[in-house]
């Protein structure tokens, strides 16, 4: 059982890291603001989600599990809003 959980954690966290990596590469390589944002937010939200998912079975109690989920939800909210704002700014012709 614990071996299975360990395996689950390893797989989930590694794939989370992969998405972070992909998002970063996209951020660096994509040509304009909107596509960069796309790369960042999509990959990071998924990446963080997978890492949180992978860590959940390791939580000692329910409260810390809830905290982890809350962190994920907050980052979702923050990331989504920030990228919306940046996109609006970019569309209005600001930035470089």
């Amino acid at each position, binding site marked *: 059982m614990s071996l299975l959980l360990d395996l689950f954690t390893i797989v989930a966290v590694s794939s989370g890291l992969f998405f972070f990596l992909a998002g970063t590469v996209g951020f660096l390589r994509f040509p304009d603001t909107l596509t960069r944002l796309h790369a960042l937010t999509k990959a990071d939200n998924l990446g963080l989600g997978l890492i949180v998912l992978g860590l959940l079975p390791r939580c000692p109690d329910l409260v810390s599990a809830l905290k982890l989920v809350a962190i994920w939800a*907050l980052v979702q*909210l923050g990331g989504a*809003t920030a990228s*919306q*704002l940046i996109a*609006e700014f970019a569309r209005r012709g600001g930035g470089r």
Partner: protein
Amino acid sequence: MSLVVDLFMVLLILTSAVWTVLARDRRDAVIAFIVLGLQLSLVWMRLMAVDVALTEAAVGGGATGLVLLRACARLQPVEAEGRLPGLRAQIAAGLLCAGVGVALAAVILAPAAPAPSLAPAVAAHMDEVGLKNPVTVVLLAYRALDTLLEKVVLVLGLIGVWALAPDLFWGGRPASLRAASPSGTLTFLARVLPPVGVLIGVYLVWNGADHPGGTFQGGTVLAAMWLLVMMAGLGELPETRALRLRRLVAVGPALFIAVGLAGFWMADGFLSYPPEYAKPIIVAVEVALALSIAVILGLMVAGPAAKEPER
């Protein structure tokens, strides 16, 4: 293995630092500085100083970054970017700074053995205070005087910022924080986030007695929520002459001093706490301080009065 991660971290930090200094555009420099602040808070985690990591992220990167970004926005149309002076001056200054850096590095490489520490002394007296977070014990018991005086520094700093208002505007509202064209997204965030943020801020203060967290970290989160509401245009900053605002600023330091002086009668003297009530007293002081810090940080970001007071 872990040292490789640290080495990578150091490289990232030095890149941000060099970029902060050398960037042509001042906004690039500020963004590099904010990135540096976040990287440094990771370093503080690596150094096992969670309280400092939280403070660095909230105050060092967050609040300072916000002040600098606002400055950029207001400087952009007015002031030209400065250029670094010529190569010869750069080389001379570079040599001087490198010398200082090498001397400091040499001190780091030859540490005192065994490393001196007050940790055992801190641990020996923790029971007398009754809290479990050693950093909070140092801040509010052993070195409470520093913490108290630093609150006075914050109030003086706020007076200093306010003092820059033109005479005509004294007592009026600071310049509006509202974004030039408030977007629906920001308004949405400003409606959804503050309840959560306030909860987190209160949690950080409450938790600070026994676990990492405390007045600054919590107070900064509260300030951030306040500022967010202002930026989205959901509220206006109060007039700087408003007595309610003034009292919110003063309540933390005033309560701290009052508790300190009460120690003359109730305990062993200034800033000592009666052992059986130490924890509730300290938590009460922390709550008041967090409130004051939140208001002071928000007002410092907002700047001096920029409108005539309303009649």
